[in-house]
Structures are given as C-alpha cells and as structure tokens.
C-alpha cells in the first residue's frame, strides 16, 4: 500500500490560513504514506502533472488530495489519477478550503484541523478498494410525456437524430397551452402560425409515434431500460377512420363546456378542440353526451361518413421499453376563485382570466377575435389588467413568480389597443420583470405606444357598482389610494403544476417540490436531469417559464437523451451497494428499505436465497447498508470500515 498525499495551496485561498507544508510534513509521518507535497494550484494543468509524476515516480497506488470541496473537483482528480494509472476510486479528496481555510482565521487551529482532515482522508483511502464502472445495455426508444411545445420540441429533436420516440399526450390534440395563445411576446408572432407546423411535423415524422388521449400509468426499470404502461383512453372514435370532417360536431345535440377555449363559448359532447388539431380527429366526452346521460342518441354514429364512431371502444394499455424518458407535462393556470373572494371569487362574469382573454383575442377563437364583455357582449372601453393573481402571494401559499405575467399583460395591452383603438388599459403590477431578450423594449411599447397606464400596486378589491366593476387599488408610486371603474377585468393568473404531476412523479420515482413542480437534479449544473437516471425534464413541469426557455430546455433535454440512448451500453457508477453473498442471511431488510427497488432475492446454487443489488438501479444512498444487521450489504466508497477508520483517525 503506497499512498501519496497532495496538499493544495489554492494560491492563498488555502495557504493564507493553513500551513500547507506543515500538513504535507505531517502526512509523511502517517503509515503507508510514501510521498507528500504541497502544490500551488493542484487543479491546474501543471498541478495535475505534478500529481501524475509523483504517482509514477513513487509507484503510488492510492492518493489523497487535500484541496477544495470534492463537490468541486472530485471528478477532475479522479481523472488525473486514472491517467497516472491509479484506480480513480482510490483517490480521496479532503476539503481544507471551504471547510477549513475559509472559515477559520487562526493559522494554528486551521493547520491542526487540516492535518486531522488529511489524516482522515488517508485513513479512509487505506480502506478503499479499486472500483470499476460496469455497463448495461441501453434501449434506444425514448418516451416523451406531454405534447405541448416542450414535448413537441424534444420529440422532434430526438427523432431528428434518428431515434424512435413515443409521444404521449393526455388531451385529444398536441399543442398544449401554447396552442391556445393568440400572439406571443415580444415579437407578436401568431402562436399557432409557429406552433402548428411543428405539430404537423410530429404527425409526419417517421420516427415519432404519437398517442393522444393517453396517460402513462406505470413505469418500471431503470436508466437505459425502462418499461412503461401507457393507457389510451376510449374516445368512442376510431382515430384511424376519422377524417376530421366536423359533421358529427355540427350535428351533435349535446352542448359541453369548451375547455380548449378556457370556458369562453361552448362546445359539443363530440368535438375537435381546434381546427389545427393534430391528429385532426373527433373525440367524445361521455360525461356530456346525451347517449350516456339520457341513454338515447346516436346522431354522430348516424352522420359519420367514415363509420368512425365506436360506442363500444374500451381503454387500451400498451407496454413498451424505453431507454430514456422526457417529462414535459406542462402547467395549468391557477384556479383563482376560492383564493380571491376580494376579486369577486368568480361571481362577476366580467372578471376573466388572461387565458380567456387570449381566446377572445384569437381570430380563430370563439369570439373570432372580438373583445366582448361576457355579461352583455358589449365592447369594453376601460380594461383593467391585474398581475400576480395567485403568484407572489404567501398568504395563499403561492410565493413564487409566474415568470410570464408581466410580459403577457404588456402583450395583451398592446393587442387591446389594436383591437379597440379608443380603449384604455390599466395594468396593476408590483414589479416589472422583463428579463428576456427584447422584453424591456416590448414593455416600454405597451406604455408608450399602447398608452397602457401602469399602476404599481396590488388590487385590494373589485366590486360591482352601477354596471361597472370598481377596482380598488393603490398606486404606491404616488402613494394614492385609487379606484378604476372598469368594463372588463383581466386577471393574470399564475402557473400551477399540471393536474396529476405529483402522482406521475411518484410513478416515475422522481422528486417534486411543495408546489408539485418536478425537481431538477441540480438547479444550476443539472437543470434538465432528475435525480433518477434516464429521466429528464422539459418545460413548465419543472417550474414557470416562457416559451423560449421552454423550447431551450426541451432541446437541452433532447440533447441529453440523444447522448444517452445513442450508446449501445452505458456506464454505471460503481459507488453503489454490494452484497457479500457468502454471509447474507436472507432477512430482506435491505429490500424493504430500498427506495429504488434495486435489491432482489436470488437463489444461489447451494439453495440459499440471498439479496442481490441491481447496480443500474442503485443510486448509492446506503439506507440498506444501515438496515442490514450484519452489514453484509455495504455501500462501496462508504463502507463501514471506511467510516469507522475516519472516526477512529480523527479521535486518535
């Protein structure tokens, strides 16, 4: 056993407080340490070369590097020692910067502590054994959950690399929330003009299998080797036969709420959500259909020229294998009514959400692009926009910002001026967040060109008086309490995680936050990964964001996925649990506690049943190691003896 110890000075970051040479000298007094030295910048090229040279010169087989946090450079130095011929997992990093030199000012104390930490590293590295990464085969097909702009982008990017994709969408059409928007900020492109071609591309891409009206019901397996059950819900329409001719929709006698249009206008029990739907097929909602409510009807079946109506249709379940999963389940708008009785709590028809307003603005929407008061159909003159409804409000448990409200209200004010030139928009806001490219100019345009009056304050109350909606607010800039007599009030409701996001996360075994948004593995450095290998996030399922960010994240996730599944096999971390089969007594405590179902029973040739670790599933948490009474299950890299030796060394 020949250990080398390298003490990094990190310029003065460490050396100013820790006498690095003294630490290096102390290392030489330790058993098995054949070499030690202090290096000015160990992570630099010359620094790494020094380490490699010393390894070779002194024939070292283990290395301790006392420097910054292992969270910073552990990978760097593993690579360094590997280049020098040492097993990368026989390198132990000791943190004498963040945990020592930077938090102490007494040189003697800091040096003494650094020596202790270094000695602990030596003690631990002595217990280390070479570890080797292993490989598992990778299924190349990819599952994308959610057919909004994020899912579409990810699916197309992945398919472009020649990788087969299955895209699962819960609704009858692709498009998600973006398909409901009129125009998009800050360019005022028509949303459907840019989105529908992408939707059609999905439809025609040979490598994409699109399954609408479907949900992912169960996921098993692990990175490279997932298996998913996908439930396709019965819609009473044979998608293969339906031509999207709309005859059934026209003839259907059952009215139904128009969810696509956010409740503005009405729809039918059998419907096609929008003319640009992909796939362009009708679907029937039994809960609104006269045939199912009253027991008699059948008009759609009679009128359908394609014979596509099938009342007997049942849910079907597909099971398929996937190498990676992209979750792009999007968002829903906050249901503001119970949270804001002071804004009328939904009792006033002329208080609407921005999405409803969006549908009104849209030429293909239920009002054909005309802005109308829902109460009487009149064209409003004074329109009040209210920001942050359900955002930045701790009192209702929603402290976060929706990221897009400021900008889409600016957009709606500009569009309002275009639709009704003599209108006046009032925008209540708290802080203007215009951080994207060209956003600031766009916001200024709403003020300057569209004449919107920006009032800095939250609205306290809306009440009806003499046919108007009185909006009580404050303009904190002038310090005024004020009221606006509005014809129409538009609420910028916040984002909320999509319905069922938490349940899906549980099925996928990925973490989610207190608001049910899915959690990324690291907010900065692993923003599209989840903590479960092989599962990636795209778009607003991870948190509120605008279209450019959504698309960027979707492409990033796609890039990660392509990198993963284009390999035939992949390496897994060796720092996972292992079982000493000789000694396993088969009590299965490890199986009971494993959060990843990564431990199974296996029968040995002698008939004994023992636990085995599925290395590709194991994430290396070590819960099993503690649960195993004889410590037969041990976590590589953190074995009992490694931890004990650290304890013993520091207290020696």
């Amino acid at each position: 056993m020949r250990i080398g110890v390298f003490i990094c000075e990190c310029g003065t970051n460490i050396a100013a407080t820790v006498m690095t040479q003294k630490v290096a000298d102390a290392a030489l007094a330790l058993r098995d340490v054949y070499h030690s030295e202090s290096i000015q910048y160990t992570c630099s090229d010359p620094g790494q070369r020094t380490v490699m040279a010393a390894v070779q010169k002194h024939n070292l087989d283990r290395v301790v590097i006392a420097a910054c946090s292992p969270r910073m450079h552990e990978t760097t130095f593993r690579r360094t020692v590997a280049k020098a011929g040492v097993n990368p997992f026989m390198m132990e990093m000791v943190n004498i910067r963040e945990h020592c030199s930077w938090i102490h000012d007494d040189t003697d104390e800091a040096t003494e502590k650094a020596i202790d930490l270094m000695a602990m590293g030596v003690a631990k590295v002595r217990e280390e054994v070479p570890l080797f990464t292993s490989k598992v085969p990778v299924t190349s097909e990819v599952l994308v959950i959610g057919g909004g702009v994020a899912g579409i982008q990810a699916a197309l990017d992945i398919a472009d690399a020649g990788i087969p994709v299955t895209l699962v969408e819960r609704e009858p059409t692709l498009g998600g929330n973006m398909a409901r928007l009129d125009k998009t900020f800050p360019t005022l492109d028509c949303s459907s003009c840019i989105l529908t071609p992408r939707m059609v591309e999905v439809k025609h891409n040979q490598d994409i299998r699109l399954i609408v009206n479907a949900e992912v019901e169960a996921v098993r397996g692990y990175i490279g080797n997932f298996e998913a059950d996908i439930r396709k819900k019965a819609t009473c329409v044979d998608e293969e036969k339906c031509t999207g001719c709309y005859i059934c929709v026209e003839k259907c006698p059952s009215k139904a709420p128009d969810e696509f249009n956010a409740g503005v206008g009405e729809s039918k029990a059998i419907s096609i959500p929008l003319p640009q739907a992909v796939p362009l097929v009708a679907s029937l909602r039994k809960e609104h259909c006269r045939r199912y409510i009253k027991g008699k009807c059948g008009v759609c079946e009679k009128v359908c020229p394609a014979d596509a109506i099938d009342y007997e249709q049942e849910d079907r379940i597909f099971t398929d294998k996937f190498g990676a999963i992209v979750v792009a389940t999007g968002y829903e708008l906050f249901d503001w009514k119970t949270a804001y009785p002071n804004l009328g709590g939904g009792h006033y028809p002329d208080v609407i959400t921005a999405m409803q307003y969006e549908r009104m603005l849209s030429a293909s929407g239920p009002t054909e692009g005309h802005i109308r008061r829902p109460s009487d159909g009149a064209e409003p003159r004074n329109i009040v926009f209210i920001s942050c409804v359900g955002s930045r409000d701790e009192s209702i448990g929603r402290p976060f910002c929706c990221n897009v409200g400021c900008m889409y209200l600016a957009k709606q004010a500009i569009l309002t001026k275009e639709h009704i030139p003599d209108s006046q928009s009032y925008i209540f806001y708290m802080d203007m967040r215009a951080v994207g490219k060209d956003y600031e100019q766009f916001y200024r345009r709403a003020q300057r060109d569209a004449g919107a009056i920006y009032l800095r304050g939250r609205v306290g109350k809306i009440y009806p008086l003499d046919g108007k909606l009185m909006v009580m607010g404050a303009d904190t800039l002038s310090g005024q309490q004020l009221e606006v007599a509005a014809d129409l009030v538009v609420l910028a409701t916040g984002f909320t995680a999509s319905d069922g996001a938490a349940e899906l996360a549980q099925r996928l075994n990925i973490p989610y936050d207190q608001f049910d948004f899915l959690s990324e593995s690291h907010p900065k450095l692993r923003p599209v990964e989840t903590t479960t290998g092989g599962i990636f996030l795209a778009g607003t399922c991870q948190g509120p964001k605008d279209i450019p960010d959504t698309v960027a994240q979707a492409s990033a996730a796609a890039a990660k996925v392509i990198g993963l599944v284009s390999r035939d096999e992949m390496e897994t971390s060796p720092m996972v649990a292992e079982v000493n089969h000789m000694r396993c007594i088969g009590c299965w405590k490890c199986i009971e506690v494993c959060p990843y179902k990564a431990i199974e029973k296996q029968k040995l040739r002698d008939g004994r049943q023992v636990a085995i670790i599925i290395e590709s599933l194991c994430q290396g948490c070590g819960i099993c190691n503690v649960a195993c009474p004889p410590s037969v299950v041990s976590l590589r890299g953190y074995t009992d003896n490694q931890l004990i030796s650290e304890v013993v060394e520091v207290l020696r």
Partner: protein
Amino acid sequence: MADLVTTIKQTLKDVELVLGWVRDPATGVAAPARFHTEEEAEAAVFDSTCVHNLAVHLPRLKGRRLGIVAKGCDARSVVELIIEHEAEREDLKVIGVGCGSILDVKKIWRRFGYGVEIDDRGDSLELGGERGPREDFLARKCHGCLEADPDIYDLFVGESAGGPAGEISGGREEPHPLSAMLEDLAPAERRAFWREQFSRCIRCYACREVCPMCFCRDICIMQTQVPHWAGGEVNARESEMIQHIRVSHLAGRCTGCGECERACPVGIPLMLLMDEQNRAIEDMFGYRAGDSLRARPPMQTFSIEKDLWGDEE
C-alpha cells in the same frame, strides 16, 4: 399433561419435529427438547419452570416444517420472526399453552443451590422444604407480561390464563427493578454505572445466542474485522460497544422476552437497556414488537407526517 402430549403427537403427523420441554430428572425442572417421534413426545411437559423461549430455534431450523410449544410471550417472538421472514407461518404449527407465570429457576438455584427441590403450588412456592414468596422468584418478564395466552396458535393446550400473567400475579407493567435507580443518576453517574456493569462481561455471547431475534449469530458484527465495530478484547469498553450493537439492532424488534438477562452469567441488567428502548419505541411509533403479523417493523419504514422529531425549528 396428557393433553399436551396428545397435541404434540397429533402435530407430529404434520411436521418434522416439535420444539417443547422435557423434565430434567436430576433437578426436576424443565429443559428444552425436540420431539421427532410420538415416543419422544411422551416426555413432553409444561409447567412453571418452562422459562426458555423456544423461538430461538426457529431461525436455526429455517425452511423446515416445525411445531413449537409457545407461551404467550414466546408467541410474540414467533410473530416477529414471521414478520422478519425467519419463519413461514404455513410451515409452522404453534401449540399455544396457557401460562400462569414462569419461575426464574436460575435465581432460585443461585440463592438456594443448584437442584434444590422446587414445589410450585401455583399460589405459593416451597424450595427445599422452605416456603418462599413466589413473587420473588417470578421471571422478570412476567412482571410486564403482555400476553399470557399466545396471540397466534394452531392448537391450544391447557387452561387459558384469561389475561396477562402479570395481572394474575398483580405486577402488570412493572418497570425494570433498576429503572428508578437509573432515572435518578446524573449522566456521568449513568456512564459509570454501565461501565461498572460491563466490566464483568466475559463476552460469552450468551445474551446473543439465546435471543430469538439475534439471528445473524455466526456472522454477527460484534466479532468481525469487516466491519470492525468492536475490538476483540474482553473489557468493559468493548463489551459496552457490543451491547450497543445488540441494542441498536434490536430496535423495534425486541419482544421483551428477557432471555438475554436471564442467560447472562454475570448478572448484567441487559433488560434495563431493552426495556428503555422498547419504551422509547412505543412512545415514538406506538409499536410493540410481536403485536401483529401485519405490522411493519418501525425501523423498516417511516411516516412523513408523524415523524416530526428534529423539525421543531
């Protein structure tokens, strides 16, 4: 006890062997035995000297079809062993016996000499012709008896005790005799107390070997180099560490049968530790090992909503 003998014989038709007791002719008290044949079963007895917890043999006989004669307290161990996959309910025939309470034979012997004649009349006790207060010689576990009749059994023999034995003897839920003393000690005094106790330990591992729940046995980490939790020396320091290991590993699993303390040749109050831990477990999780076959051992699970310790800030 013809009834017991018949029952064992009947059970033997279905199983390989039955764990029970026979009378040791030299001392007249019961000793554990295995009955393989009907002939052997003739010797089966059950009386108030059947102190041993026979469940200790179940893990050793894992995978075989067995019968076991079990008192209420022993049945708790059986339950816990089934929960922990050390015994299969289907492969086990439990012959429940109604238990009035059990004598601590070793205590009697240590005081009156090995083999002293024990004449237990149920309400009183005569030892070598001298009358002794029966209360004084009850097994410790009877004082906190949770179940005089077994909770699970396939066949039942004898009279149902109709309630916890402790109740019958009037000593229900009695804490360990030393717990009040320990309560009064300052932390440093407690440390000294335990060190004193463990200085007697000879590391014979009887505590472990008689414990039905210590089924790792031969690979127990008390003695291993990998992992090396405890040194090999026989001294108070290491003995306390190995007992730390035992207590820690029995968290939520100890049914309080008291075998460890009974077996300890040097009289270390091991059940004082176990009792305290069992109490803490019950307080924290409302769990008592051996209560139910459907239970989930508390250290093998968690509750997001209820486990709020350490969250006070």
